[in-house]
């Protein structure tokens, strides 16, 4: 049974590092406030909701017996108002059975967009997990990377979430940000832990070409060890070694605080590992709805167009809104490569029996020599029929995973 991802392609404003498809509404809202209402723009959310309702119907046959988890991501889903959120969730519930009934249902949220009535509605419609984009507790850094919220908004947001009865909370944090020091990072982690979330995701900043940060730092030089002039315009970017130090510190610290490191970037209290994401890492099918969302069902990957207008037009005309460039029919080799690449990101690793059942071939028959070599060097660990990366090599997993490409 596939898991369900629903993309909400709106934000109040784009963050400096983000390359996901989303339409910043801030300007539009400002314009509305100033009385300059552009019909087309103010129509965006209703247009999106209509499209979504239609897409669900169109694609119903892709998950006829239901879905196992829900992840409402973005963008910022909570930029929708309570009524809009309700409409979206109603549409989803009307069309999908969740198996189990109390399935994990996550909504991504920005602390600057949370109100009690929004969270209450989410909770009413079965949302039992909120993933909060915190990124940092340092207001200067938050401002620098274009976040719309402050550290104070975070505390407030968490209070609202708890008050509404959500018992599974994730905080997203980013490290390796421009100008970030080790003590900034340590302070952020400590404050995050003080909020007692059940789950934490720590992401090393990845510069993407089509983002303001990417444009600022990628074009210059690949050698990030170069010291940039120490003004706000181009603060030094922590290099790989520094990021590794930050990561190591975090891993030790969180383990000491009772968080289990269960995937390269993810930590959770016992029993709070994210089911939706685990489904990705175990090579399960997933259905993605909304502009820019990716699906992978029975070895065929499709991607919806990253253009709301185009998406709506196609969907309302009764066609699926696939971006032809995003469609891939995966070969068995690619499926195996992905299975290894994803499974080895987790601390549980890969169940070799499950692998053999799924692909009708033994892992050893494909990767015999590499496997033996890595196990010999204790880079990979094979225990109780499960294969995993030695945790001390997690942050250099790419070098290992490259060798599992077939």
């Amino acid at each position, binding site marked *: 049974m596939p898991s369900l991802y629903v993309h909400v392609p709106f934000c109040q404003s784009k963050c400096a590092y983000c390359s996901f498809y989303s339409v910043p509404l801030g300007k539009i809202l400002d314009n509305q406030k100033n009385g300059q209402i552009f019909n087309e723009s103010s129509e965006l959310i209703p247009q999106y909701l209509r499209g979504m309702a239609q897409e669900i119907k169109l694609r119903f046959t892709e998950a006829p017996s239901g879905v196992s988890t829900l992840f409402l991501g973005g963008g910022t889903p909570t930029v929708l108002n309570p009524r809009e959120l309700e409409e979206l969730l109603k549409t989803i519930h009307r069309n999908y059975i969740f198996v189990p009934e109390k399935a994990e249902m996550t909504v991504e949220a920005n602390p600057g967009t949370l109100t009690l009535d929004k969270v209450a509605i989410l909770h009413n419609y079965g949302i039992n997990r909120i993933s909060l984009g915190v990124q940092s507790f340092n207001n200067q850094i938050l401002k620098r990377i274009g976040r719309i919220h402050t550290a104070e908004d975070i505390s407030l947001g968490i209070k609202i979430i708890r008050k509404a009865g959500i018992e599974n909370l994730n905080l997203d944090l980013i490290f390796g940000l421009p100008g970030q020091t080790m003590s900034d990072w340590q302070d952020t982690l400590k404050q995050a832990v003080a909020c007692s979330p059940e789950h934490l995701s720590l992401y090393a900043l990845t510069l993407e070409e089509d983002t303001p940060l990417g444009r600022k730092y990628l074009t210059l030089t690949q050698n990030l060890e170069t010291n940039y002039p120490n003004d706000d315009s181009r603060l030094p970017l922590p290099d*790989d070694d520094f990021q590794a130090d930050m*990561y190591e510190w975090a891993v030790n610290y969180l383990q000491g605080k009772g968080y289990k490191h269960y995937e390269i970037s993810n930590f959770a209290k016992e029993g709070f590992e994210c089911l939706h994401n685990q489904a990705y890492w175990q090579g399960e099918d997933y259905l993605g709805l909304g502009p820019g969302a990716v699906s992978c069902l029975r070895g065929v990957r499709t991607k919806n167009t990253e253009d709301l207008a185009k998406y709506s037009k196609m969907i309302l005309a009764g066609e699926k809104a696939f971006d032809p460039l995003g469609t891939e029919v995966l070969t068995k080799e690619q499926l195996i490569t992905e299975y290894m690449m994803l499974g080895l990101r987790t601390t549980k690793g890969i169940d070799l029996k499950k692998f053999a059942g799924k692909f009708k071939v033994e892992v050893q028959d494909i990767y015999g020599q590499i496997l033996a070599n890595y196990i010999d060097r204790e880079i990979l660990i094979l225990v109780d029929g499960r294969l995993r990366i030695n945790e001390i090599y997690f942050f250099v997993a790419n070098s290992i995973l490259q060798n599992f490409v077939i």
Partner: protein
Amino acid sequence: MAQASSKIRNFSIIAHIDHGKSTLADRLIEYTGTMSTRELKEQVLDSMDLERERGITIKLHSVRLQYKAKDGEIYELNLIDTPGHVDFSYEVSRSLAACEGALLIVDAAQGIEAQTLANVYLALENDLEIIPVINKIDLPSADPEMVKHEIEDVIGIDASEAILASAKSGLGVEEILEAIVHKIPQPQGDDEKPLKALIFDSKFDSYKGAIPYIRVFDGKVTKGTNIKMMSSGKVFEIIEVGVFTPSMTIVEELRAGQVGYVAGSIKNVQDTQVGDTITDADDPVKEPLPGYRKAVSMVFCGLYPVETSEYEKLKDALEKLQLNDASLIFENETSAALGFGFRCGFLGLLHMEIIQERLEREFALNIITTAPSVVYRVTKTDREQILVDNPALLPPEGLIEFIEEPMVKASIMVPAEFVGPIMELNQEKRGNFLNMDYITETRVNLHYELPLSEIVYDYFDQLKSRTKGYASLDYELIGFQESKLVKLDILLNGEVVDALSFIVHKDKAYQRGRKLVEKLRSLIPRQMFEVPVQAIIGSKIIARETIRAMRKDVLAKCYGGDISRKRKLLEKQKEGKKRMKQVGSVEIPQDAFMAVLKMDD
């Protein structure tokens, strides 16, 4: 007696790189109407990309020009070209031996260069009539009078009638043609005598086989003649005789004094060695022409495919190149680090680079070149003498009585102000100063005895950079000399990488080892673990660096929408790794193997 025609003139052009040889040759061709401008362009395009890019002419084609002189007679002028680089001195001497005269082209602003001088001496040895041509006289910095003096002082020939020319604008071309006709002697020789012809070049044609370019001294050759190669005794039946116009044009026969080609299903260019004498198998001469020697490889290196699966492709490519280049030699070689490859011998570094580049460009091969080496003569403790051209094959220290290295005599011609830097360079390069001549008040010719290996390592680049490009170099092998040499090995992660070993003078070993490990540290990307890089002599570590372990390479996020991109990234990285060589557990990029060569500061 049928004397060779009085209407034939065989000449070559001697010039330093950039002094305008190709342009002048083009002008002569144009002026005599041998080729239209359009054909000329095609002809130029036909030459190797490499030559044009480097702005040097490795070799022009030979060409026969028909020239109606002012005396009303039509002359057959054969331009036999010579390669313009120190690596090819022997080929030059054979081309000159095929002529009666030579145009000496000297740049009006720069004067004579060492390479030019060396070739003029070769021409004088072959009793050639030298016609001095001062080229580029339209340059603002031209000083023809100075150049004339230089020619007289240095070469000792009369330069009062030197022709002032500009190949670029065409000035002086007619005068040059007239001088060729009137000053260069007609060829001596007798059509009736048994065939005696010199091979001065050869090329491979996929239909006609190996084709020797010849100058007939006596006798004649026609279709059906059975020719004998005097160095090997091999006999071939001639099926085609022709001349260069400059395309190959079939003629009835080639007679004494003439220049052209013969073809006779000769399968291998090894059978058409430059300098060899061709005679009539049915009526042979007793003595060959003087001066033949087998091409000697000066520099050796290992060539390996980056991808082991391309071994056969590399072998094919080398065989194809060898078809046209008898001086390229290669044999199988195995390296613990690099797998199967070839040890190749070259006339010099330029020759090596040309072959390397042609393999990459014309055959789309990815190759690793190991550090060039010279041939060492090793006398073992049991008195057995062996020649070692691959450092990895040097016997262990304990079995070596002594090692000798090849020496060269080098002439460096340079403006007097650079004498200091040149002496310094030669000191560093273990040179032994012989003497110094003043060519003019401002130009000197320095003579040194140097180990060939020092010339191989970065000498030419250093020479150029320390003299602002003014120095020119010529050298010849003079024999072996005992020297304190050691083998330096490189250990990566504790394992010897045989392809990085080299032989070096004891006094320089420490410094070279130090530099090389530093260089390797910067060239080898960080691996998942710390990699010590050590330089050792025998079992003694003389330098050490550490490549720190890589600590981060992972993309932090990987969810539904990232999976495809992430897989493609891994696929790309894996592809990129194919350009790396796995030695033990360490991945080494291609250019690290060349680091041994490029260790300038």
